[in-house]
């Protein structure tokens, strides 16, 4: 892997590279029709283990009818077609054919940026990694010896999957006017005309609707716009926003602040319905911080102090809840009540009001000992405690969290406040309400919607579609021609962040420059360009806009001479130095108790019956990723549901309603009804139904259309997160839910080793819970041992650290060209993921303990799969890898039968047919990994392509591969460093240390398979008081 480019001098040409790149791509577009060229392009990465077209087309079927049995023989001898080589006309600098380059960029998600490294092969990005220099991104193997190795940072599912969206064939490609293909110039002309009329009135009637804006450049453009048209207005709306946090901070401090949690600093963490391990601008750092405090070493003593304790009070099961030491499932309003009670227990004085009464009455389902234990723990951990409120909780819960953290002196230890990172912090719900009202009132003459899909995801009671009818000129910029585009006069294709310039801010305000990896694959415009046209500049390119903004800004502030140097450094590092938001020390307002009292009455909706809880979907978020096959097929954490959303409910609730998995129920909230299948989820709070947003899209694309159920119709401005008093009735219909795991009970098998910290400390050297059930026998083989001198690759997975966030699964899919198979195939257990996260629970179905067990090829030294292969298609390498040679495989599937871990995946059908047919989609494939054909087995290879790349580099330098030089895709993505990979023969390697731990064990070790992938047991830290 090349890393030289990371020195500034080479990075200094980045803009040139882009232009060269674009030239290359423009020539591509010229040649678009030319097959030969695409053949040549395809040459860039491997195709199929055999080149047969395994088609099921009717024509082929007829052709084959005659041949029948004889056919098999004939197919064998198909000769390779002539391949072409197409060199550059002018070789671009930096690009060495056949070697990847890494460029730093950033992705904006949920109103904050996450820094990324994009791996580019011959100018096409194929893999995303986290940028370790970015404040929101924890580094992987940071401890490893500092070599010229490439440093990776963690990332999340959305970042990993973003590269697939870039090549999505369904992305819109042309400007549309009323659905008819039009041109940018036509648009510009019409816009100009309208603007000129609006100009007199100072732009009155011009409205801009954006999503949360954090981009400094964009903010600057908006500022200019408002200067130009003083009477124009800019609104922000995202269905999943931070309104409650904002209100909460105003409530507590009477100020807008951005809260930063230093989870690692906290000994006791209380989550009030906060999914802080997977949600929030800094969730990767939070997850890392949490995990770092869950590791215990064999010296039990030391670990006692080091290990934190997590209490989670939540109404809907989350990965954070699954990771908790103590989890309390409550109805939403009970969560609010709990926080109030907690505050009171910690000394908050509320004058007795009916609202307080209300709170207490609602809270009667809260176990008192729980409350006491948490309060006591927090008290005891003064200054080292942390209370986090979830975005779904009403503002006063956030206020209470602030209050507790302040009162217990957790600020600045584990909580820190900085100025808001948003360009204009505001209550987005109100912002949208204003817009809709003026639309209804006919005050809006031109509405420019820059990204976002309000027609699909605006609160139902706003009737956005109807309001839109009153607007003469509507413009919608979006990557897909979606629901909103369909109702707007103009649709402008939006560029993907990997193909346009921009900038963004991390959760702490640090700015990253978003630089493109390729010139646009499809003609489109960026936010900046469209806004520039509003400012009268029709020709400006994103690069010029962003560059000029930063030139002026850097020249303004940068003391040292050349702003270009700073700019180059920023491009290279992926962050602009010291741009973080300034810290603030807000103080709890004096009249806190009073204000709070007033809030309570509004915030604690009474009401009986079933509460419906709306949550962002772990895969599709608010629906924007609906057309991303990787995310659609990604088993949702804990439920392993794919290709659908469902009404998640507790077993008890399901019994009460007399429904089973897959039964379609009708949920009625205020006369609005939706039909959605049931999925029973142990751990879900009683009488609470969780609905995930983002499904039932009508115009998402071929993949996302009409997958799942659209639950936005139930979501009104009054009930953005919780709807009380829902009515549910069974419809008698059923719907097949594609789950990748049907059975979450261990059937008394000792598959996951788990114990408590106390148990561990009794015998840190050999904890009792490590020796329950079967213990692998020592050399029971009649054959002699195989010796592995040289490298001995192995992996250790720390189950205590794994939070089941799925980032590794998508990373693996992206790195290894793992195909998408579709719902039908998943229903028949044919999903292809090389790495899956098994989930088991222990204990009562009401509130069980959850365990994640990432399961991938264990690379057994005595692999059962190998001796049964008749053609030696799967064998052992001299470094102990269990190798799968696709092109030798004839597909007996015996290896899969004989694999106790069932990690082998088989191409039952031609899963790459579409890939082969779509020249652009092909560009997403990793050229270092074979794209498998029909009828061959495949499985995790420990990213052998990365090992081999590292080996070649090392060999060329006449040295051994250093620890941390080979980082598998899953390891690189993991925010908690739960996955460690390396050479077991290297005494200094981290994997060696972890494999020596007293908590290390092999799954099914008693079968004497001698796995190279071993696990570290789960150690939890429950509060003795709650035993």
């Amino acid at each position, binding site marked *: 892997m090349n890393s030289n480019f990371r020195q500034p001098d080479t990075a200094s040409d980045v803009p040139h590279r882009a232009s060269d790149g674009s030239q290359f791509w423009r020539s591509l577009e010229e040649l678009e029709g030319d097959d030969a060229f695409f053949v040549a392009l395809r040459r860039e990465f491997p195709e199929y283990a055999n080149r047969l077209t395994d088609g099921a087309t009717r024509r082929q079927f007829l052709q084959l009818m005659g041949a029948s049995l004889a056919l098999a023989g004939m197919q064998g001898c198909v000769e390779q077609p002539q391949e072409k080589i197409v060199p550059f006309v002018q070789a671009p600098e930096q690009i060495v054919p056949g070697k990847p380059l890494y460029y730093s960029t950033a992705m904006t998600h949920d109103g904050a940026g996450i820094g990324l490294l994009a791996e580019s092969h011959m100018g096409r990005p194929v893999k995303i990694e986290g940028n370790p220099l970015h404040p929101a991104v924890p580094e992987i193997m940071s401890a490893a010896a500092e070599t010229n190795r490439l440093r990776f940072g963690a990332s999340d599912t959305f970042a990993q999957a973003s590269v697939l969206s870039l090549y999505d064939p369904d992305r819109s490609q042309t400007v549309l006017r009323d659905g008819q293909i039009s041109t940018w110039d036509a648009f510009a002309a019409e816009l100009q005309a309208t603007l000129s009329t609006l100009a007199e009135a100072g732009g009155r009637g011009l409205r801009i609707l954006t999503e949360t804006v954090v981009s400094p450049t964009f903010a600057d453009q908006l500022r200019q716009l408002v200067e130009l048209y003083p009477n124009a207005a800019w609104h922000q709306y995202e269905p999943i926003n931070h309104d409650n946090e904002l209100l909460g901070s105003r409530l507590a401090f009477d100020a807008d602040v951005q809260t930063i949690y230093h989870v690692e600093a906290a000994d006791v963490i209380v989550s009030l319905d906060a999914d802080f391990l997977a949600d929030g601008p800094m969730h990767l750092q939070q997850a890392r911080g949490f995990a770092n405090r869950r590791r215990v070493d064999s010296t039990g003593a030391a670990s006692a102090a080091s290990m934190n304790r997590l209490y989670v009070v939540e109404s809907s099961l989350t990965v954070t809840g699954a990771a908790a030491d103590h989890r309390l499932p409550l109805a939403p309003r009970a969560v609010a009540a709990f926080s109030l009670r907690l505050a009171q227990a910690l000394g908050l004085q509320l004058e007795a009001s009916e609202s307080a009464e209300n709170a207490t009455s609602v809270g009667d389902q809260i176990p008192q000992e729980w409350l006491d234990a948490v309060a006591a723990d927090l008290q005891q951990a003064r200054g080292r405690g942390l209370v986090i409120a979830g975005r779904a909780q009403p503002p006063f819960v956030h206020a209470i969290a602030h209050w507790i953290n302040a009162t217990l002196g957790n600020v600045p230890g584990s909580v820190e406040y900085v100025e808001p990172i948003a360009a204009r912090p505001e209550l987005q719900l109100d912002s949208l309400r204003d817009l809709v009202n003026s639309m209804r009132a006919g005050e809006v003459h031109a509405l420019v919607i820059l990204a976002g899909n309000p027609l699909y995801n605006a609160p139902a009671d706003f009737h956005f579609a109807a309001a839109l009818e009153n607007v003469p000129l509507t413009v919608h910029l979006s990557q897909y021609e979606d629901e909103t585009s369909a109702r707007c006069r103009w649709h402008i294709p939006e560029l993907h962040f990997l193909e346009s310039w921009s900038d963004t801010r991390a959760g702490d305000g640090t700015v990253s420059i978003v630089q493109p990896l390729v010139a646009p694959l499809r003609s489109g415009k960026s936010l900046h360009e469209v806004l520039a046209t509003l400012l009268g500049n029709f020709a400006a390119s994103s690069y010029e806009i962003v560059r000029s903004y930063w030139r002026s800004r850097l020249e303004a502030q940068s003391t040292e001479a050349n702003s270009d140097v700073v700019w180059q450094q920023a491009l290279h590092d992926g962050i602009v130095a010291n741009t973080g938001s300034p810290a603030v020390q807000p103080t709890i307002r004096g009249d806190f108790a009073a204000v709070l009292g007033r809030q309570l009455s509004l915030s604690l909706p009474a009401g009986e019956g079933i509460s419906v809880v709306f949550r962002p979907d772990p895969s599709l978020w608010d629906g924007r990723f609906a057309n991303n096959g990787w995310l659609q097929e990604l088993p949702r954490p804990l439920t392993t549901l794919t290709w659908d959303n469902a009404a998640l409910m507790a077993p008890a609730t399901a019994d009460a309603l007399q429904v089973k998995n897959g039964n379609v129920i009708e949920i009625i909230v205020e006369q609005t009804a939706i039909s959605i299948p049931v999925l029973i989820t142990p751990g879900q709070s009683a009488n609470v139904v969780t609905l995930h947003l983002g499904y039932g899209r009508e115009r998402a694309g071929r993949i996302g259309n009409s997958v799942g159920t659209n639950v936005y119709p139930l979501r009104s401005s009054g009930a953005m997160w919780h709807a009380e008093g829902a009515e549910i009735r069974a419809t008698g219909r059923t719907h097949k839910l594609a789950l990748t795991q049907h059975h979450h009970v261990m059937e008394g098998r000792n598959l996951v080793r788990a114990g408590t910290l106390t148990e561990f400390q009794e015998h840190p050297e050999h904890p009792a819970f490590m020796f329950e059930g079967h213990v692998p026998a020592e050399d029971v*083989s009649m*054959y*002699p*041992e*195989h010796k592995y001198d040289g490298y001995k690759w192995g992996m250790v997975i720390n189950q205590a650290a794994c939070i089941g966030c799925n980032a590794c699964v998508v990373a693996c899919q992206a790195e290894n060209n793992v195909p998408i198979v579709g719902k039908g195939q998943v229903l028949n257990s044919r999903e292809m993921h090389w790495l899956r996260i098994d989930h088991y629970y222990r204990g009562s179905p009401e509130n069980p303990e959850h365990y994640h067990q990432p399961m991938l090829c264990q690379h*057994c*030294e*005595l*692999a*059962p*799969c*190998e*001796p049964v*292969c008749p053609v*030696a298609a799967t*064998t*052992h*390498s*001299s470094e102990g890898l269990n190798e799968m040679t696709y092109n030798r495989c004839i597909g007996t599937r015996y290896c899969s039968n004989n694999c106790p871990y069932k990690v082998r995946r088989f191409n039952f059908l031609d899963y790459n047919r579409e890939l082969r047919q779509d020249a652009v989609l092909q560009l997403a494939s990793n050229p270092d990994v074979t794209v498998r054909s029909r009828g061959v087995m495949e499985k995790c290879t420990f990213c052998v392509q990365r090992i081999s790349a590292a080996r070649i580099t090392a060999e060329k330098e006449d040295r051994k591969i250093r620890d941390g030089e080979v980082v598998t895709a899953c390891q690189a993505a993991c925010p908690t460093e739960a996955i460690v990979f390396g050479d077991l023969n290297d005494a200094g390697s981290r994997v060696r240390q972890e494999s020596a731990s007293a908590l290390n064990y092999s799954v099914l070790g008693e079968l004497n398979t*001698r796995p190279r992938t071993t696990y570290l047991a789960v150690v939890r830290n429950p509060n003795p008081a709650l035993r």
Partner: protein
Amino acid sequence: MTAPANYFGVLAEFADADELVAAAREVHAAGYREVEAYSPMPVEGLAEALGFRRTRMRLVVLVGGIIGCLSGWALQYYTSVIAYPLNVGGRPVNSWPSFVPVVFEMTVLVAALSAVLGMLAMNGLPRPHHPLFGIPQFDRASQDRFFLCILARDPMFHPMSSRQLLERLGPVEVTDVPQ
């Protein structure tokens, strides 16, 4: 009456097996050695009566078996130890216990083939054309009649005397068999 040179032999037809065996003994006792008997099914003691005892089939099969056994083992040893030694599931390259089944099958296969081919070869089959097939009544040799034939190549053969000898043995009929 044709010259001896054109003779294949004289053929006597009998009604049942016992007569044939008896006749065979007589002819053999009379000193004829190039004599052949034909029956629609194997007849106990007939071949012995003609002085034919050892078939050497067992030897053929034994040799075949040994060849099969060795080649089976050699094939596996060569491919997995010499040609491309691979670490398969941590087993040693020469994991002989796993080689036993194929060795056994190869043994049986070659042995069986040599049995059949050996039998055909020693019987001088296939031989779709044969002088006897020219004799109409010989059809019944494969159905319900028994034949004894003194071949012309026997040194003692004489068209007249041999014929008379056979006629004395009470056959249904005696025929000359032309070449």
